[in-house]
């Protein structure tokens, strides 16, 4: 246990520039992911996010192999994946199999490309499991730009997006361009996922893109409160996970995933306690 939870020399570690970079990146990512995740949960898009993350990995691996910046490859892969899922899989039933097929192919392709790459091994591994060392100041600028973009798009399109995500039939009847919005949303997910991949890794993107929203949905049905809670959970997981990982020197993704899971578990407990109190329904 000593090696898993440790705060030895945390003060000095926190003073390191790359650690501070990582914390800023995590805070920004937590905000963006937290804002998106209640809508992801409402749309039932957990698997699509997972697929998007795997294709961000493929894009990153392709960039590594061809000598491009990994981040750009990841963004390209994720946005492309988001668009493909958005176009091909608007119907729920079809969507799962489309994602499964594309995901498997992308993952295989990525593994192959990593095997062909003869550079540093930590570069390879970082894509899958994430690494805070991967965050440098360029990443932060890209992250900030994307954050401004996502927040801006949400500020303009939040109500139609919520309408289309929770009540698509009536949204269509009221003239909401549901199909266009699902493509816009797919791009937002793609961008955010691509930025999450270097930090938490392709495999564990779900812990920041799904878990906070799923946890919040357990304790509130109010979209606004769910969004605020999801941002809080995402921040706790990402920033807290990063801090916890510092002294033991272990991968950040494990801590982030554990904290996100703890938030989810806690919310489930609250929900089940409330369900036993008869008045809880009207709370």
């Amino acid at each position: 246990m000593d090696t898993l939870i440790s705060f030895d020399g945390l003060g000095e570690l926190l003073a390191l520039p790359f650690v501070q970079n990582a914390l800023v990146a995590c805070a920004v990512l937590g905000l963006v992911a937290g804002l998106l995740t209640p809508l992801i949960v409402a749309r039932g898009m957990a698997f699509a996010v997972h697929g998007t993350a795997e294709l961000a990995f493929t894009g990153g691996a392709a960039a590594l192999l061809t000598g491009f910046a990994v981040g750009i490859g990841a963004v390209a892969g994720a946005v492309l994946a988001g668009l493909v899922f958005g176009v091909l899989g608007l119907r729920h039933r079809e969507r799962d199999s489309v994602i499964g097929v594309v995901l498997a192919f992308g993952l295989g392709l990525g593994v192959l490309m990593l095997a062909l790459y003869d550079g540093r091994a930590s570069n390879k591994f970082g894509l899958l499991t994430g690494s805070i060392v991967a965050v440098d100041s360029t990443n932060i600028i890209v992250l900030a730009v994307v954050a401004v973009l996502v927040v801006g798009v949400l500020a303009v399109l939040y109500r139609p997006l919520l309408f289309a995500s929770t009540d698509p039939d009536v949204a269509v009847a009221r003239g909401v361009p549901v199909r266009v919005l699902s493509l816009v949303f797919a791009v937002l997910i793609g961008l955010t996922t691509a930025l999450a991949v270097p930090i938490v890794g392709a495999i564990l993107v779900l812990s920041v893109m799904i878990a906070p929203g799923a946890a919040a949905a357990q304790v509130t049905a109010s979209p606004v409160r769910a969004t605020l809670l999801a941002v809080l959970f995402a921040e706790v997981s990402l920033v807290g996970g990063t801090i916890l990982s510092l002294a033991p020197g272990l991968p950040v993704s494990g801590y982030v995933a554990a904290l996100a899971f703890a938030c989810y578990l806690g919310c489930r407990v609250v929900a089940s306690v409330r369900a036993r109190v008869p008045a809880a329904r009207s709370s």
Partner: protein
Amino acid sequence: MTAPTTTSRITTPALSLRGAQVRMGGRTLWDGLDLDIAPGEFVAVLGPNGSGKTTLVRVLLGLVELARGEVRIGGRPARRGAPEIGYVPQQKALDPDLPLRGRDLVGLGLDGHRLGLGIRGRRARRARVDAALAAVGGSGYADAPVGRLSGGEQQRLRVAQALVGDPAVLLCDEPLLSLDLAHQRTVTRLIDERRRAADTAVLFVTHEINPVLPMVDRVLYLVDGRFRIGPPSEVMTSAVLSELYRTDVDVLRLRDRLVVVGTEEHAHCDDPLVGEEPA
């Protein structure tokens, strides 16, 4: 059967179809449809599956283009997102974990199509949503997750959602499907009260006329591209339905109910509005 009291007034029809033809996948669903619905009038649309009832609703919503003819809502050509229209869909199972409360569902009916966050005017918005909830008796579960409500409660919210924007036309697409009798009565009563109080024109798609029979002014009966429009007493007869179905159909009156025999109504399949199949 009350005759439409408003048709005598000289007024723009709330909804109007002229020589309307709809084609879907190379097939003509119906052609030459003329229909004016006056403010406050209640028109039921009946017919077997695939006769184009839901497609008619989609035409009025501006989601399907007419191949010929014209469609007007409140005197203006039908278009997507027309504010004059309120829409009540059929009841559908919702995810119990859907992060949406009853009041959010109703609120989306008011301004869910608008851009921006709508932070200004929040108080006025809340008052309107509360009033709409109270009008359908839904205040008690306004803050409950919609996915955990019963089908009847959900449909009350649907009525509130459709009415909160104060529409001149109410389009209802099988809103009673999968509701029990008591809830069917509540939902139809709410719609009927509203059209009397606010002169709202109602177009009500249903496969079962009895729940709405007391309030129906006219029936549009669609079968395989053939149709008949008129008061229930004129359309819901053995002779007219036999002609429409081109087979022997008997309409029996049992107390205050109509029983139609011989139309081979099959079990219903869902026709969600976003689907591509004509209903």
